[in-house]
């Protein structure tokens, strides 16, 4: 049986020896999902904003790539364009939310999520509507086609590595600190010269761009796209993934995506009931370890003594922002 331990693979990047085409496919899907989830983690975990539209951004990336590739553009260009498109839409979407308080960004993204889905579905001339777009070819690299699953897996792994490094760099830079400041206390941050509007937009747009980039890889991975995976429900699942993995923890999205993508594998014996089990697991997880799997790991590995959020929360409302 295929019991995948994702940790074995991230480190060395070698597809599991027993993996067949499907295994490689699933691993690739996991990476793609993790890229999008990293974006959500930046928005939700670090900057403390809320997004219910990541799937829509994945969709934007997927459609941009599909259309460009079908029109004969090289994949590299389509990939960049997908990121840029998602970034730009992210900025436009962030603007109205700046006028108001925190939760409203979530509401705006929720509305956007549904609107984007409607556009994907209704504008058949462009997006193929409910029939979707098929036959999206995989890129070629130096004249070498990545049609084979394993080749494409390596390609995606390389991109994931680059994107992971980039995000890690952003988060450990002063920008990352500013993002955290948005989460913790935007008013105080503003008074310390942190341009809250700009950083809010940046966090949201960068996170969304990661969604777009993930979408750009998703389209050639599946070789077919239609509006369904870009609806509101999947956006919620991205949030869920990130929090289950551990919001605000760097490895969180990878773990969360692994759970979301690979858990159905592990629960295969349960057939139709796997969603039930998944839901129960998530709820139990939240109840006993709201900091997610990475939070749990930190707690269990005593090496790093860093009080968790729960332990340091002031008992009285003293520091309530």
């Amino acid at each position, binding site marked *: 049986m295929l019991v995948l331990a994702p940790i074995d693979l991230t480190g060395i990047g070698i597809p599991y020896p027993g993996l067949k085409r499907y295994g490689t496919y699933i691993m690739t899907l996991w990476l793609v999902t993790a890229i999008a989830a990293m974006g959500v983690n930046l928005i939700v975990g670090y900057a403390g904003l809320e997004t219910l539209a990541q799937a829509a951004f994945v969709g934007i990336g997927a459609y941009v790539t599909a259309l460009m590739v079908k029109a004969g553009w090289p994949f590299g260009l389509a990939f960049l364009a997908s990121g840029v498109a998602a970034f730009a839409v992210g900025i436009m979407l962030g603007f109205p939310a700046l006028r108001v308080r925190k939760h409203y960004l*979530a509401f705006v993204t929720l509305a956007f999520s549904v609107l984007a889905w409607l556009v994907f579905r209704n504008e058949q001339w462009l997006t193929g509507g409910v029939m979707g777009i098929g036959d999206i070819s995989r890129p070629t690299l130096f004249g070498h086609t990545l049609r084979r699953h394993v080749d494409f897996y390596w390609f995606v792994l390389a991109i994931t590595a680059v994107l992971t490094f980039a995000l890690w760099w952003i988060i450990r830079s002063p920008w990352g600190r500013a993002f955290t400041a948005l989460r913790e206390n935007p008013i105080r941050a503003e008074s310390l010269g942190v341009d809250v509007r700009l950083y809010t937009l940046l966090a949201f747009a960068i996170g969304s761009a990661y969604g777009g980039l993930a979408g750009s890889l998703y389209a050639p991975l599946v070789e077919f796209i239609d509006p369904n995976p870009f609806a509101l429900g999947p956006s919620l699942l991205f949030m869920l993934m990130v929090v289950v993995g551990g*919001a605000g923890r760097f490895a969180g999205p990878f773990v969360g995506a692994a759970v979301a993508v690979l858990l159905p594998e592990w629960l295969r014996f349960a057939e139709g009931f796997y969603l039930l089990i*998944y839901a129960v697991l998530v709820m139990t997880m939240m*109840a006993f370890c709201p900091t997610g799997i990475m939070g749990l790991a930190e707690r269990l590995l005593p090496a790093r003594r860093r009080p968790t959020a729960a332990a340091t929360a002031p008992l009285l409302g003293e520091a309530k922002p």
Partner: protein
Amino acid sequence: MADFLQLLISGLATGAIYALAAIGFTLLWQTSQTINFAQGEFVMLPAFFALVAMTWLGLPFAVAVVIAIVCSMLVLGLMFKVVVVQPLIKQGVLPLVISTIALSVLLKEGVKDVYSAEAQPFPTLFPDVTLSVAGVAVSLAQVGVLVVAFGTIVALQWFLGATRIGRQMQATAQNPTVARILGVPVERMILYTFLINAVLAAMASILISPIYLAKFSNGESLGLAAFVAAIVGGFNQVRGAIVGGLLIGVVDNLAAAYVSTSYRQAVPLILLVAIILFRPQGLLGRREERAV
């Protein structure tokens, strides 16, 4: 003109459904500062309690309704509070929100696997009569929903604002630690919140299932509509739910008739964004003031 009236009336009737579902959002927001993403499923589920009572146990409808309400209080009230909310109330909003997302999956899949994936007809509390007033057709069930929605919201508004228990519930939401210091039975207040929400959900379920049909996936669209209604009306005001609900119902119908059927869902959402931009506290909401 008759068409317009028909659209308006139908929209109001559907809007009352949304309002009933939206009350739960505002109630939970006001009393536990949580967004319950399972609210749609909360309204979907009780009808199935009644169906189980009727088809599996062979009980008459009236008894089944009572059973549905009691079961809802146990499952959506007591169990939800003890199993989901209690461990999470101190952990901030995000884990709780995530838990409700998972819960919505659980309820939906549970009903599908345990009962059926098929839509089920559901008996109505009101006789199946269609009234025709000035060329406009209205069914009695719709009127019933409208009246009940209004009544409930008025009662709830009064309860939260004008009774001590109601205010203790609000206090618990706004600052549970201080509420505890002052001796507010915080646990009990949270429980009340969820019991009330459960009863409301059960009522909504029983009222709307004859129109909507009982189906495991009903919560999806209902939840979204209710959510939008709650924001439009004003998240922190129970009476906002009714205005928001009715407005969304009407706007949705008018949009389908006069804008585009394939973009009808978009119009309430655009309204939502407009509201957020120009009146973020919602139509009836009050401004939350003083940030510094």
